[in-house]
C-alpha cells in the first residue's frame, strides 16, 4: 500500500493512516508504542504468553477501530484504553486455572530499597505528600486505585483484571480514598 | 564395450528392506507402479537418509510417481515401503507419516481468491494445527524462513513464479515435518531465482530428510548430499554425487574438435569439445569427470546417445 506514510509522522497522522487501511502505518505505531505497552501490561499480568497475546490483540484492535479516534485525548491513551481491555480479555480466556499474579508496586520499606536521588527529586517536585499517602496504602488498595484511576477501568473491568469481584473493587477504592484523604489533609 | 555394460548394470543400494523396520529413514523395496500399460516404476529399490537427496532423471522417468508414493498420495501396485518407520499401506501408518510430512507437488494450485497468509492458514488447518495461536506462530515462522513476510497479505495471483515456489516450500514447512518431499521445486525458475531457492533449501535446519526431484544436474551438485538416478522407471544409481562423478572417471576427454569415436560430445564453455565414451582414443587429454558426466554416461547407455550434443541431461520434453 503506497500511502507514503513516514515513520516520523505524529501519532494522530499515523492513526489516520491506519484508519485508511495503511498497514505500514500500523507497524510504525507498533514500533513506537509496543515497548511501553509491553512493560505496562507486564506490570499487571505476570504471565508472558498472555501479555504477548494481548499485545497482538491490541494492535489488531487498533487496526479495526482506528476510525473511532476522534482526536480527543492523546493517541497513547487511546491505544492503552484498547490495550488494557484486550489484556482483560486475554486473562479471562486463559481461564481461572491460570493464576495471574499481579506484579505489585513495591514498597521501599518492604524490600529495603533506598530511594535514588532522582526519585527524591521527582517525588519532591511532582508529588510530595501524595507519594507518602500512596505509600500508606496496602498493595490491594493500591492496585484497586491504579486500575480504576490510572487505567480508567470500570469496577467490573478492574475486577476482571485483578481477579476479584466488582463489589470488592468498589469497597477497596472507597477505603483507599478514605486513607488518602486522611493522609493528604 | 564391456565397461558400458558394466555401467548399465544397476548399482545396488545397501541392504534391502527386511521388513517394516523401526527407524527414521525411507526404505523402498521392489516398488512397482503401472499407469495403464506404461510401467512408471519398475522394481525400484531405494534408501533415503538424513540430508538432501536428489532424484535425478529426465521427464517421464517416474520421479513424480515415486515422490507421490512417498508422500502417500498414491499407492504402489506392489513392493514394500517403510517411511519414517511406518507402513503406508495401513491407515494408522499413513496417518503417522502424514503428521511428519511436508509435500510440494509439481503443480501446486491455489484457490484464486487466496492471499498468502490465508492459504498458509488453510494448509495449517489441513495439517491439524487447530489451535489458532499455534497456527499464527507457525505461519509467521515459515514466512520468515522463506522470506515472504513482505507479501503476507498479497493475493497469490500477484506473486511472481519464484515467490510462488517459495510459498510452496513454506506450506511444506508448516508443522516442522521430518520428511520433505519436493517435486521439481526449482523447475521453470530463471537462474537467479533458482540460485536463491537452492540457497534457501540449504539453509533449512538440518536433521530432517529432504527428497527433491530435478532434471538439472547442477541442482544436485549444489545442494544434495546423495543422489538417485532414475531412468525409465528404474533406479540406475544411488550414492553421493562424488560417486556419480567417479562413474565416468577415465572416460571423459577434451579435444579441439569433435571426435567421432565418442558416445557423446558437445561444445564446452571454453570453446573446446568435450567427449564422453568408453574408450578414450590414445593421446586424448583426459579431464576430471563431473557429476554431469556420470549422469550422461548412465542416461546415454540407457537409451542411446543424443547426437544433437546439447549440454545438460537429456530432456525429452
Amino acid at each position, binding site marked *: 500500500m503506497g500511502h507514503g506514510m513516514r515513520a516520523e*509522522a*505524529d*501519532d494522530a497522522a499515523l492513526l489516520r493512516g491506519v484508519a485508511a487501511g495503511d*498497514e505500514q502505518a500500523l*507497524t*510504525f505505531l*507498533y*514500533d*513506537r508504542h*509496543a*515497548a*511501553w505497552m509491553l*512493560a*505496562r501490561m507486564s*506490570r499487571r499480568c505476570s504471565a508472558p504468553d498472555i501479555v*504477548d497475546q494481548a*499485545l*497482538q490483540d491490541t*494492535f*489488531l484492535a487498533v487496526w*479495526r477501530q482506528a476510525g473511532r479516534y476522534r482526536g480527543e485525548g*492523546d493517541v497513547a*491513551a487511546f491505544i492503552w484504553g484498547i490495550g488494557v481491555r484486550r489484556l482483560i480479555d486475554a486473562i479471562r480466556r486463559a481461564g481461572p486455572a491460570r493464576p495471574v499474579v499481579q506484579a505489585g508496586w513495591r514498597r521501599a520499606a518492604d524490600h529495603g530499597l533506598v*530511594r*535514588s536521588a*532522582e*526519585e527524591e*527529586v*521527582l*517525588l519532591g517536585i511532582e*508529588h510530595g505528600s*501524595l*507519594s507518602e499517602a500512596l*505509600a500508606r496504602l496496602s498493595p490491594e488498595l493500591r492496585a484497586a486505585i491504579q486500575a480504576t484511576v*490510572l487505567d480508567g477501568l470500570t469496577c467490573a473491568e478492574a475486577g476482571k483484571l485483578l481477579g476479584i469481584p466488582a463489589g470488592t473493587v468498589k469497597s477497596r477504592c472507597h477505603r483507599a480514598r478514605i486513607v488518602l484523604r486522611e493522609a493528604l489533609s | 564395450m564391456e565397461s558400458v555394460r558394466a555401467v548399465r548394470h544397476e548399482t545396488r543400494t545397501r541392504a534391502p528392506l527386511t521388513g517394516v523396520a523401526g527407524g527414521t529413514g525411507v526404505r523402498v523395496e521392489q516398488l512397482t507402479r503401472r499407469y495403464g500399460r506404461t510401467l512408471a516404476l519398475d522394481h525400484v529399490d531405494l534408501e533415503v537418509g538424513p540430508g538432501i537427496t536428489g532424484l535425478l532423471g529426465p521427464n517421464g522417468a517416474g520421479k513424480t510417481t515415486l515422490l507421490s508414493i512417498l508422500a502417500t*498420495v498414491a499407492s504402489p501396485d506392489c513392493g514394500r515401503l517403510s517411511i519414517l518407520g511406518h507402513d503406508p499401506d495401513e*491407515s494408522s501408518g*499413513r*496417518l503417522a507419516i*502424514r*503428521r511428519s*510430512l511436508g*509435500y510440494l507437488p509439481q503443480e*501446486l494450485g491455489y*484457490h484464486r481468491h487466496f*492471499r*498468502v497468509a490465508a492459504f498458509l*492458514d*488453510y*494448509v495449517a*488447518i*489441513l*495439517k*491439524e494445527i*487447530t489451535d489458532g495461536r499455534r497456527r499464527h*506462530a507457525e*505461519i*509467521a515462522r515459515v*514466512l520468515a524462513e522463506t522470506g515472504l513476510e513482505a507479501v*503476507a497479505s498479497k493475493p497469490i495471483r500477484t506473486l511472481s513464479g519464484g515467490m510462488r515456489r517459495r510459498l510452496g516450500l513454506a506450506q511444506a514447512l508448516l508443522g516442522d515435518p521430518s520428511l520433505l518431499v519436493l517435486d521439481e521445486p526449482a523447475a521453470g525458475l530463471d537462474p537467479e531465482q533458482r540460485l536463491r531457492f537452492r540457497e534457501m533449501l540449504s539453509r533449512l535446519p538440518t536433521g530432517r530428510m529432504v527428497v527433491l526431484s530435478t532434471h538439472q544436474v547442477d541442482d544436485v551438485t549444489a545442494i544434495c548430499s546423495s543422489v538417485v538416478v532414475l531412468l525409465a522407471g528404474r533406479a540406475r544409481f544411488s550414492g553421493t554425487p562424488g560417486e556419480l562423478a567417479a562413474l565416468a572417471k577415465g572416460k571423459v576427454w577434451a579435444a579441439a574438435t569433435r571426435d567421432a569415436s565418442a558416445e557423446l560430445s558437445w561444445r564446452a564453455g571454453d570453446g573446446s569439445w568435450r567427449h564422453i565414451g568408453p574408450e578414450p582414443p590414445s593421446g586424448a587429454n583426459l579431464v576430471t569427470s563431473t557429476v554431469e558426466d556420470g549422469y550422461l554416461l548412465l542416461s546415454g547407455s540407457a537409451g542411446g546417445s543424443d547426437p544433437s550434443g546439447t549440454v545438460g541431461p537429456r530432456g525429452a520434453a
Partner: protein
Amino acid sequence: MRDPAAMRDTAAPGSAGGACPVIPPGLVTGYIRGLLESAAAMSVEAHLPACPACRTVLAGEVDQTRLDRNRSVLVTRLALPDAGPAGGGLARLAERLAARCGVPVHVWRLLSVTPALRRSWLAGVGLVLGTAIGAARFAGPGTGLATAASGGALPAGMLPFLILAPLLPLAGVPVAFHPRLDPAADLATAAPVSGVWLFCVRSVAVIAAALVPTSLAAFALPGSGWLPLLIVLPALAVSAGALALATLVRPLPAALSAGAGWVAAVCGAGLLAGSPVVAYAGAAQAAWFAVAVIACCLLAVRHRVLEFGWSR
C-alpha cells in the same frame, strides 16, 4: 523489520533527540526493572507513552527479540481474513456468526474454501430459485399441491420448481469435489486431516447450504402445504447417491447420473401415476429414505477412496 525512525515522533516534545526534561533515564530503567516505589512508578508510567526521549531509553531495556517475534505474528494476523476492514468485513462477520453457532474457527476456514459455499455459487442458487418461484406464482392460479396429489390439475408453473428442488443441493456436489476445482487437493490428501472427516464436513455443508434456501423458498409457492419438508428426503437421497457414485466414477458423471435418475423418477411418476407430485408423496418418501441409507452404506464401504482422493 523494525523501523527505528518510528521512535521519533515529530509532534511530541523531546523529539529533538535530547534528554527528557521531566524524567531522568535512571528512573525509566528503574521502572522497567521494578525497582521503583509506587508513586514514582505510576508517575513514570503515566509519562512514558507521550515522551519519545524516554521511549528511546526504554527501547534499550526491553526484550527486543520478544517485541520482534510479536511483530511478525501481528503482521501475519493482519494478513489473515479475520483481521478486519482490509480483509473484508463480510468474511469476518460470517466467521463470527459461525462461531456463535458452535462451528469452530478452523472448520469454518476449511469450509469457506469449498467453491460450493462461495458467494457466487449461492447467488446462482438464489437466482434459479427466484426464477422457479416466479414462474410458479405467475403461471396462473391452479390448485394447490394437496389437491394435485389426489388427482387435481397441477399448475404448470409449479413443475419447474418440483423438478429443480432436489437438483440444487446435488449440483453443489461436483462443484465442491471436482479435482480441478480444488487445486490444493493433493495437499489435502498428503495432510494428516482425515479424508473421511473432510469429506463428511464438506458434503454436509454443501448440501445444507443449498437445501435450506430451497426449502425456505418452497414456502413462497402458492398452496405449498408440506412441500418444504417433503423436499428434504429426495434431495438427501439424490445427493447421497451422487456422492456414493462418485467413489466409483468421477464426481461430475456421478452427479449427472444421480440427477438423471431423479428426473426419470419424476417423469415416471408423471406418466404412471398421473402427476409428478407423486414423486414427493408418502410412499415415495420411504423409497427415498431407503436410497439415502444405501448410498451411505456404499460410502462407508468405499471410504478408502476418500483417503486417497478422487483422482487415484
